[in-house]
C-alpha cells in the first residue's frame, strides 16, 4: 500500500536570505521536489511610472537611478538616449566616451554583485565579500566623478553633470590592473570549483527557443546560445567603435543554457567590459561636456521606444510625449521583469535548493521588477 503523501505549500519570502530583495515565491513541494512555483511581486512597487507623468524630463533621471539600483548609470544612459532621440540632440564626442566608460564600469560592478550573491546563494560566502571588495573600488571611481556611490544622477539629457576628475583616467587604469588578477582568483575560488559546478550545471536549463518566446534578454539569453547583444546588433552611442566580443554560452560543464552558463556569461562579460573601458580611456577626446545640454527639455509630440543593453538585459523606455515639459506616459521594459516570467517554468521538477540557484542565476533586481 502506498503511503498517502501531501503536497506542502512553502512561502519563500518576502523576507528570505536569498530572494534578492522582497520577492515572494509560493512553492508547492512534495518532499523536496518542486511541483510548481508562483512568484508574487510588487513588494517594492514605487510608482515610477506615475512619477514620470508628473515630473519634467530632467527630473525623471534620479528616479530611473532607483529602478535597477545596481546599474544606475546604465539606467540613466538608456533614459537620456531615449529623450535625445525624441528631441534629436547630438551630444559631443567626449560625452559619449564618458557615458560608455561609466556604463561599462557599472556593468562590472553590477555583475560583481550578481556573482557575489550567487556564490552566497550556493553556500560560499567568501566570494561575496571578495566581489564587494572589488566593487568598492569601482564605486570609488564613481564617487570621484559625481560624488555619489550608488545613485548618481550623473548622465544628463544632452550631456553630463560635470567633467571627469583629473585623476579619473589614472585611477581607472590602476583599477583595471588590479582587477584582472582578482577575477582570476574568483574563478579559482568559485567558478571552477567542482561542488559549485555540480550545483549549477544542468540545473534550470533554458533552451534558446523558449528563451526568445519568453522575451529573455541579456546574459541569460546569451547563455542559451543566442548571439544577441544590443551593443552589437542594434548599436547605440559609440559602441560600434570598440573591439569586443559577445560571449555566448557553450555548455562547457553541462548543457547550454544551464545555471552555470548564465553565471559564467557574467564573468566573461566583465572581461569584455574591461576591454571596452581600456579602449575608451585611451581614445577619449577633449571637449565640453555641457555644451549640448538644452535649456528647456520639451520634446515634440510623439512616441519612441528606445533600448539599451543593461547588465541584466534589454532595458527599454517607451516614451509618449504630448509636446509639454512632462511626458504623458513612460513605460519601462525592465529586463528583470521580463526575465522573471520564465522562472516558474525553469524550476519545475527541481529541488528546493535549486530554486535559489536558478533565481540567483537569472539575477533579478526587485527595484526594477516592481518599479
Amino acid at each position, binding site marked *: 500500500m502506498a503511503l498517502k503523501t501531501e503536497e506542502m505549500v512553502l512561502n519563500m519570502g518576502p523576507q528570505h536570505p536569498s530572494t534578492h*530583495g522582497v520577492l515572494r515565491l509560493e512553492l508547492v513541494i512534495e518532499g523536496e521536489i518542486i511541483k510548481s512555483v508562483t512568484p508574487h511581486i510588487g513588494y517594492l512597487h514605487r510608482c515610477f511610472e506615475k*512619477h514620470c507623468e508628473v515630473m519634467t524630463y530632467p527630473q525623471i533621471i534620479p528616479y530611473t537611478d*532607483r529602478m535597477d*539600483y545596481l546599474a544606475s548609470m546604465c539606467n540613466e544612459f538608456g533614459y537620456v538616449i531615449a529623450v535625445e532621440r525624441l528631441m534629436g540632440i547630438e551630444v559631443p564626442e567626449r560625452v559619449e566616451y564618458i557615458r560608455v566608460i561609466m556604463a561599462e564600469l557599472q556593468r562590472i560592478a553590477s555583475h560583481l554583485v550578481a556573482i557575489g550573491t550567487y556564490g552566497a546563494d550556493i553556500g560560499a560566502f567568501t566570494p561575496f565579500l571578495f566581489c*564587494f571588495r572589488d566593487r568598492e573600488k569601482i564605486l570609488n571611481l564613481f564617487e570621484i566623478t559625481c560624488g555619489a*556611490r550608488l545613485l548618481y544622477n550623473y548622465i544628463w539629457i544632452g550631456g553630463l553633470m560635470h567633467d571627469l576628475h583629473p585623476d579619473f583616467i589614472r585611477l581607472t587604469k590602476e583599477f583595471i590592473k588590479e582587477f584582472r588578477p582578482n577575477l582570476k582568483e574568483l574563478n579559482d575560488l568559485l567558478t571552477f570549483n567542482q561542488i559549485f559546478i555540480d550545483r549549477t550545471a544542468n540545473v534550470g536549463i533554458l533552451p534558446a527557443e523558449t528563451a526568445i518566446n519568453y522575451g529573455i534578454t541579456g546574459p541569460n539569453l546569451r547563455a542559451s546560445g543566442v548571439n544577441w547583444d544590443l551593443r552589437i546588433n542594434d548599436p547605440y552611442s559609440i559602441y560600434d567603435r570598440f573591439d569586443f566580443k559577445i560571449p555566448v554560452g557553450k555548455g562547457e560543464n553541462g548543457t547550454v543554457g544551464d545555471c552555470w552558463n548564465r553565471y559564467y556569461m557574467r564573468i566573461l562579460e566583465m572581461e569584455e567590459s574591461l576591454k571596452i573601458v581600456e579602449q575608451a580611456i585611451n581614445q577619449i577626446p577633449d571637449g565640453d561636456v555641457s555644451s549640448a545640454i538644452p535649456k528647456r527639455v520639451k520634446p515634440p509630440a510623439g512616441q519612441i521606444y528606445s533600448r539599451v543593453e543593461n547588465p541584466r538585459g534589454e532595458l527599454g523606455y517607451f516614451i509618449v510625449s504630448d509636446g509639454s515639459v512632462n511626458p504623458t506616459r513612460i513605460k519601462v521594459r525592465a529586463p528583470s521583469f521580463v526575465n522573471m516570467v520564465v522562472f516558474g517554468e525553469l524550476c519545475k521538477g527541481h529541488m528546493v535548493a535549486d530554486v535559489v540557484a536558478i533565481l540567483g542565476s537569472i539575477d533579478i533586481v526587485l*527595484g526594477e521588477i516592481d518599479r
Partner: protein
Amino acid sequence: MGLLDKQFTDDNIIITKVEDLLNWARLSSLWQMGFGLACCAIEMMATSASHYDFDRFGVIPRPSPRQSDVIIISGTVTFKMAIRIKRLYEQMPDHKYVISMGSCSNCGGPYWEHGYHVLKGVDRVIPVDVYVPGCPPRPEALLEGLLKLQEKIRNETLVSKTA
C-alpha cells in the same frame, strides 16, 4: 531587560553596575536581521562587506527574526510590504531595535507625494529608534546610526521611571 525590566523603584550602586553590564552586552552584540528592501539594502550589504565591516561592532546578519536584535529597514516600504514588516517586527524577541535607513523609510523619500503605493515612513507601522538620513545613506552614515543606537542602549535603565 527581560524579567528585571522596570522592576526597581529606586536606583542604587548594584543596580547601576548590573545595568551597565547588561547594557554593554546588548549594545555590543546587536545581531541584525538579514533583510533588505531596496537600494539602501545594497549599501547595507556594502556596510557588512569587507571595506566597512559591520562585524567589527559585533553585528552579524541572522536569517531568522527570532535570533535578531535589530532590524534595519533599508529602503522603501510599500503597503504590500508594510504588513509583512509589522509581522516580522512582532516575531522578533524583545530587546528589539529598529534602524530606519534612508529617506524612503524615514518619510517616504522621493516618493512622498505621488507614491500611491508607498508608505510614507515606516514609523507609521513600527516604532523606530534611529533614523539614518540619506538617499541612500553612505555606509559611514549607517555606522553612525548604529553608534547612536548603541548610545541609546547604553542609557537604558532597570529603574522604572517616576512621574
